[in-house]
């Protein structure tokens, strides 16, 4: 099946310099994210998964190589373009949720809209924004908590708010850095179920970093990070059985997912 490529990276190299010692993290990574698929990125702790994700999200710049979003190069685009790219085209969720503690759940969900729009256009479309934010909160099942602060919520709830926030601007791609890493198995499963639902029902493209082989195995595509390179790019044929398994999650044997990254 030939799917359009949402995001592609070629020859990405990145090394950190500390006290004149070069720490090469990425040594020429070539990846392609296909539209509508769940891609899992696995690898040992410290192998550079987060680094790669930051490069893909233009939060950092590669030493060499390029990142293309829908065919256009964005790693060396202007600041404003990259800000817009992160705001409109990407949804990002993190292991530690990264909600803004001063804002309520609904305000956190509204944040990307507020950031992306000028004061006037935000006020002009205030009602729609609010509707959409409420819809997103409803989508993650937290509408009744919309006026709660992050400190009044559990980890799983916070992660769901973070997902709602990531979905607020209707992104083309969801980047998730160990979304279940900080949660217990049960809650982690819930989050994964939510993400898979989004993928299935809305066709959301997801790139997810995980330490859990079980999750990796259930993904459409699995990248393995090793020695600064993407080692294996799993074949597409794995998708069939995965879909079958995912359709009945209740019967899924409890797997030891969600153990924290070392």
């Amino acid at each position, binding site marked *: 099946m030939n799917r359009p490529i949402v995001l592609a990276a070629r020859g990405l190299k990145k090394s950190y310099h500390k006290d004149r010692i070069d720490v090469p993290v990425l040594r020429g990574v070539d990846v392609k994210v296909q539209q509508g698929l769940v891609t899992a990125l696995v690898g040992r702790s410290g192998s550079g998964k987060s680094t790669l994700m930051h490069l893909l999200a233009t939060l950092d710049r590669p030493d060499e190589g390029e990142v293309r979003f829908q065919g256009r190069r964005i790693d060396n685009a202007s600041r404003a373009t990259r800000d817009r790219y992160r*705001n409109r085209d990407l949804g990002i969720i*993190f292991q530690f949720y*990264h*909600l803004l503690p001063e804002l309520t759940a609904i305000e956190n969900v509204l944040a990307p809209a507020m950031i992306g729009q*000028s*004061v006037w256009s935000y006020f002009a479309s205030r009602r729609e924004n609010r509707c959409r934010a409420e819809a997103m909160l409803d989508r993650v099942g937290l509408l009744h908590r919309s006026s709660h602060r992050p400190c009044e919520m559990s980890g799983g709830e916070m992660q769901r708010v973070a997902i709602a926030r990531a979905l607020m601007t209707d992104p083309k791609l969801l980047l998730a850095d160990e979304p279940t890493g900080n949660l217990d198995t049960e809650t982690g499963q819930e989050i994964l179920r939510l993400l898979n639902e989004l993928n299935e029902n809305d066709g959301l493209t997801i790139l997810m970093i995980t330490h859990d082989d079980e999750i990796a195995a259930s993904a459409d595509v699995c990248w393995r990070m090793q020695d600064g390179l993407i080692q294996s790019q799993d074949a597409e044929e794995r998708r069939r059985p995965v879909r079958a398994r995912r359709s009945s999650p209740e019967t899924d044997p409890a797997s030891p997912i969600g153990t924290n990254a070392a």
Partner: protein
Amino acid sequence: MYRWLLCFRYLKTRYIALASIISVTLGVATLIVVNSVMSGFAAEMHERLHGLASDIMIECHATGGMPDPEAHLREIERICGADIVGASVSVNVPGMLGIEYNGQQLGRHVSLIGLDPKTYDRVSDFGKYLLHPENQKNASFQLRDDGYAPGRQELEQSGWEHRRRRVAHDRAMAKEREMMEELRRKASGQSAKPAAEAIADQSNDAAAAPSMGGVFSEELLEGSEGELPAEVDPMTEQFPGIILGISTCSVRSRNADGEVVDFYYAQPGDDVRMIFPNASTDTKVINQKFTVVDLYESGMSEYDSTFAFVRLDQLQEFRGMVDPATGVRSVTTIQLKLAEGADLNAVRDALRRRFPPDMYAYNIQTWRDLQGPLLSAVRLETTILNILLFLIIAVAGFGILATFFMIVVEKTRDIGTLKALGASGRGVMSIFLSYGLLLGFVGSGAGLIGGLLFVDNINSIAGLVESATGQEVFDPTVYYFTEIPTIVHPFTLVWVMLGAVGIAVLASVLPAMRAARMHPVQALRFE
């Protein structure tokens, strides 16, 4: 949008920042209070100084003064008549005031002014600072029966009543002394002609008419017996009237209970001695007795302690400033009152051109020139206070800077999150800048309100402090105002507010820039 939402939330949740802004609040409040009180004082002082000194003063340095003031006035009228609404001539001479008190002579140097109360009041406030209510309306150099200074116990009996009682007392004392002398003389068998009498004769001469001779130190020491020539009966008659500045003849202090009491060495009804030079080139000293007919209290200690006023025509005659041949009189000073809004300096310069110093020994000054040192001292004081207080706010600015740095560090992860969500560096920067702006507004706004409330109730606050500490805040022995004068200039408020808000914003620039420059990945990894 998110900037304002976030900085409002920060304002609501970060009380530490509010604590750091309190110094701004206090600074602003202090600045407002200090400026209001200072400008209240300055305005009061200006008013008094200006009221006391006419707009323009032409002083003649010659001891004989300038002859024919009418001709001068005509000339001045010709030069700048349009601006002049009043003119008065007077004679100013340095003099020495001698007050006899308990057999001692109290000396005091004063500025003796001969004036015409009617025209003098047109150029400056004079009558309204006299104690007797009638004199305030219509100044007179005749001693009045009573009614001086209603409400002042010490002066209750001033006037003819006081004079009669004192004269009777003096006479009884003199008789007593004479008797004692007689007894002593009898005992020692000396001649019957008392030496004191001769001197008394001399002093009576001095009292009755302007005298040109005599060594005044002797007169001072001995010519003060208070005996009058036959033609002046102190019981019913008075010497030429004199109005003394209140501090030349009184002291103000506190009694044991802390109440303010005035003590008068001389009061209306008493006789005093004035010693001053005559107007001839061959300078002689004139020793003349006057009767105090009123006291002058302007509230300006400088004036109250140096001025003594007598009638212009009398002083001219005493000093020999009337040309015996023509009857033309001389004056030393011409004072002018200008129309509202007239340019003081322009008129002064025009007059200076007409009376150049190489031809006339005249000193032509505006009241501002005269009071220049005092006015500029007050201005300097205000400026320095303002600078100091702004430095305090600037110090508060460093407090804000430190607090903001702390907040930025604390918010590192949120900054990373915002950037990951697509916020630009400038957007993040403006969060903290508007936070600083908001804090500045809140702080200086609270200071503004507090300062204005303080100024509004400053007198009752002073009263409270007084009753709490027992210490008088506004000491009436020092100040002549009964209330603290305050003036709030809106312009001052605006620039104090702008300054304080500006300092708060400036203090947040560095932390805001740091937040803007923060690397998103490092911010996100920050624990």
